[in-house]
């Protein structure tokens, strides 16, 4: 009898524990599963998880696309060609010397919370991006503004003996709707910069009240076409149409979800099963599947401003000899690399600046000439590669980079008889070693910020932190400086062209390999407003699900 009672007690205890466990699990499930009450009009695979949505902080493209939807600058990007068009400023005047811009804000521009957007907001936003306390990586985009660099870098004014302050920065409110900007010199691409995230207009009161956590507090006042509904890290960012936006009638979608993803396979699976409508980040397209994907009507490839190249460390022998650098460049079979490895339609590159920039034609760099390469190597003291030291090729962990590295190794061995060792390291080690010049040769790439050759060419000025080759050419520096002071477009293009000749033909510290292509995946029968342009910019406001398109969640294959 006792044992029966004990057993019953034990059984009851187990049952109670089981019920409690089930309830706990159900509660956790309810809490952790996103209960989206409504499905977004469009779901976009946007790329890596944004590091920030603060325009002053963002650096990556996925971050920038979302920040650009929330906050607008004086100009904004034309979705079709990424050229600057009026944004919060409806018009502007440029002084004769090209050094003073006067912007006239729209009188109907208001924050999503209803307050008017004023010239003071613009002044605050730019000065904030330059403020050392903001710690903006991209503050350099505002160095073209008078004293921008002096304030950001804490320099002292020689005339007054005091440090430059934010009041010294050449951006001022003339009245409620007029902003006057003084530049350090004529900057032909300044209107492009005004569309760039760093110069977007942000809400002063929210930032001053909530500091670094201002984007976490609802509602976030936004100046752009969308408001931030929520941001769940590694899950999704949901944005909603801002009904108070000055051009609200042209916002085509009410609700858009932007999904981060690390895995390209997962992104593609989500698209294939109708869970996502658009994939527009190149890193989310598996290159090994490009052979299969190319030619499908939902895969769109296009040129954009990105170049893949090799850096030589010119501070170390044998790469301090230009003949060696030229020899290594002349034997590269770039056609083979783009055909067998990258496979997305990339074009072989002999220069650094990609094609497509209006009014600028890049020079022809070094072509492919194995005979000349061997001759140059012999002249440098290494006939047939004899005596040439084994050197390393630094690259970050990635299947594509590895395949390219192996290909380069084979080419240099076969054509020049020299030995290269692969040095594959994780991302942060790669960045650290490259910036400290702890490499012989290194994989590199560069994506343009605006449609102007300067976004590529100023990188190799002697004092530029992105140079990372040790290459210093006073002649090159001078040409770039002259070009950026030149108001005549033809003369300026000529100066930039001459500089690039020096960079890729006469004294090359780099070997360009290929120009990137952008890849978007979406069904034109379902989604419209996704335009392909040189900057790979995709503003959200023109995007929409087509009328009569299959309802969200339908598999593209079923729809077809």
């Amino acid at each position: 009898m006792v044992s029966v009672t004990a057993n019953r007690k034990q059984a009851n205890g187990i049952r109670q524990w089981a019920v409690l466990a089930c309830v706990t699990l159900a509660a956790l499930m309810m809490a952790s599963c996103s209960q989206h009450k409504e499905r977004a009009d469009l779901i976009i695979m946007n790329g890596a998880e944004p590091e920030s949505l603060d325009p002053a902080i963002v650096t990556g493209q996925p971050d920038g696309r979302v920040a650009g939807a929330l906050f607008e600058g004086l100009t904004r990007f034309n979705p079709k060609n990424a050229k600057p068009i009026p944004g919060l400023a409806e018009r502007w005047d440029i002084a004769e010397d090209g050094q003073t811009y006067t912007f006239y804000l729209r009188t109907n521009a208001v924050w999503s919370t209803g307050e008017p957007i004023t010239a003071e907001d613009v002044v605050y936003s730019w000065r904030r991006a330059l403020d050392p306390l903001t710690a903006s990586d991209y503050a350099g985009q505002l160095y073209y503004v008078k004293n921008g660099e002096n304030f950001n870098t804490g320099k002292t004014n020689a005339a007054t003996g005091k440090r430059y302050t934010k009041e010294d920065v050449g951006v001022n409110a003339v009245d409620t709707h007029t902003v006057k900007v003084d530049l350090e010199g004529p900057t032909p691409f300044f209107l492009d910069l005004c569309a760039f995230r760093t110069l977007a207009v942000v809400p002063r009161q929210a930032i001053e009240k909530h500091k670094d956590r201002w984007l976490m507090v609802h509602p976030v006042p936004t100046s752009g076409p969308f408001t931030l509904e929520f941001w769940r890290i590694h899950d999704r960012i949901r944005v909603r149409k801002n009904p108070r936006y000055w051009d609200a009638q042209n916002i085509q979608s009410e609700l858009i979800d932007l999904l981060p993803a690390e895995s390209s396979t997962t992104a593609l699976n989500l698209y294939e099963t109708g869970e996502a409508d658009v994939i527009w980040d190149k890193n989310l397209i598996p290159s090994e599947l490009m052979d299969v994907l190319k030619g499908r009507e939902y895969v769109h490839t296009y040129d954009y401003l990105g170049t893949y190249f090799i850096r030589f460390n010119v501070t170390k022998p044998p790469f301090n000899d230009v003949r060696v650098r030229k020899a290594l460049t002349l034997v590269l079979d770039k056609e083979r690399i783009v055909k067998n490895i990258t496979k997305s339609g990339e074009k072989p590159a002999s220069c650094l600046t990609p094609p497509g920039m209006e009014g600028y034609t890049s020079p022809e760099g070094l072509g492919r000439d194995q005979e000349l390469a061997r001759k140059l190597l012999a002249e440098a003291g290494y006939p047939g590669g004899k005596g040439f030291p084994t050197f390393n090729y630094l690259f970050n962990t990635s299947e594509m980079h590895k395949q390219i590295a192996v290909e380069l190794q084979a080419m240099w061995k076969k054509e020049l008889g020299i030995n290269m060792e692969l040095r594959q390291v994780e991302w942060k080690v790669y960045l650290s070693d490259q910036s400290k010049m702890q490499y012989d040769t290194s994989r590199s790439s560069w994506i343009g910020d605006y449609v102007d050759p300067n976004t590529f060419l100023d990188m190799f000025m002697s004092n530029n932190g992105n140079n990372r080759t040790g290459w210093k050419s006073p002649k090159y520096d001078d040409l770039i400086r002259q070009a950026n002071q030149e108001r005549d477009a033809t003369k300026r293009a000529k100066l930039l062209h001459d500089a690039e000749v020096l960079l890729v033909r006469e004294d090359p510290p780099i070997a360009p390999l290929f120009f990137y292509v952008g890849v978007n995946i979406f069904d034109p029968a379902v989604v419209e407003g996704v335009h392909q342009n040189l900057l790979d910019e995709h503003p959200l406001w023109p995007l929409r699900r087509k009328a009569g398109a299959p309802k969200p969640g339908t598999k593209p294959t079923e729809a077809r």
Partner: protein
Amino acid sequence: MYYLKRIAFLVPLLLIISFLAFALVRVAPGGPFDKERAPASPEIEKNIKEKYHLDKPLLQQYWIYLKGLMKGDFGPSLKYRNHSVNDIIAQGLPVSLTLGIMAFLLAQGFGIPLGFLTAVKKGGIIDYGGSFIALLAICIPGFVVGPLLVLIFSIHFGWFPVGMWETPMHAVLPTIALGLYFGGKVARLMREGMLNTLTSEFITTARAKGLSETQVLVKHAFRIAVLPVVSYSGPLLADLLVGSFVVENIFRVPGIGVFLVNSSLNRDYTMVVGLVLLYAVLLLVLNLVVDFAYGLLDRRVKME
């Protein structure tokens, strides 16, 4: 008294762990703010370091961190600069906990009966078949199981979503992908435990007393045979609760498993220390619970 001592010992232990994590993550080359593009001037880098106290000596940095920690603040994430580490853990932990508990239940629910059966039916078809299934579960890694499950049950049959975390249906495949391997290990442990127990003298005594085979197996043998599984359950549950990088990545599950790997790769110092501490607390507490359960299951064990 024993348990009070153990709990009191947790505090200095966690301090040591937090300091080691804090120091070691800074030894790795590269820093949280190293990017493909250098800032326009060295001063920009200086500004950033100043803002996050990275310009101060290590011990001073640790002291600042510790002061925050005492208030329950793990500090700002250095990678996701609008988020604090607390934000990220608060968002991701419930997801990882749910997935982890479900995977744990799956592992136990699959492993214990399988191990029990294969031991009881030793040498027969059930033993060979069951052991093969357990071995297969152990041998196929998560990054193979996950895509296979997606291919078969999502792409081909369309029964489950390929990824994301919205409804209970979204949790099915990640749970299987995460729990299967551990289920195999539990089955092996259970089988070994059962086989060892069944040769014990007290089992012979129980049978001699005329107890039914079911009573012998379930009431007497099982209680002792399950002890290795109980020992393994503490670290197993700690492992599962903090999520899995591979499974969360494959199924786009917004847990904290992804951060376990990425925060080190990103040199997100505060995130690394926060997660190490979280994992340490889970591990230590669960080990304590296991020891307590051990005492309940096996009266011969005394905690001293």
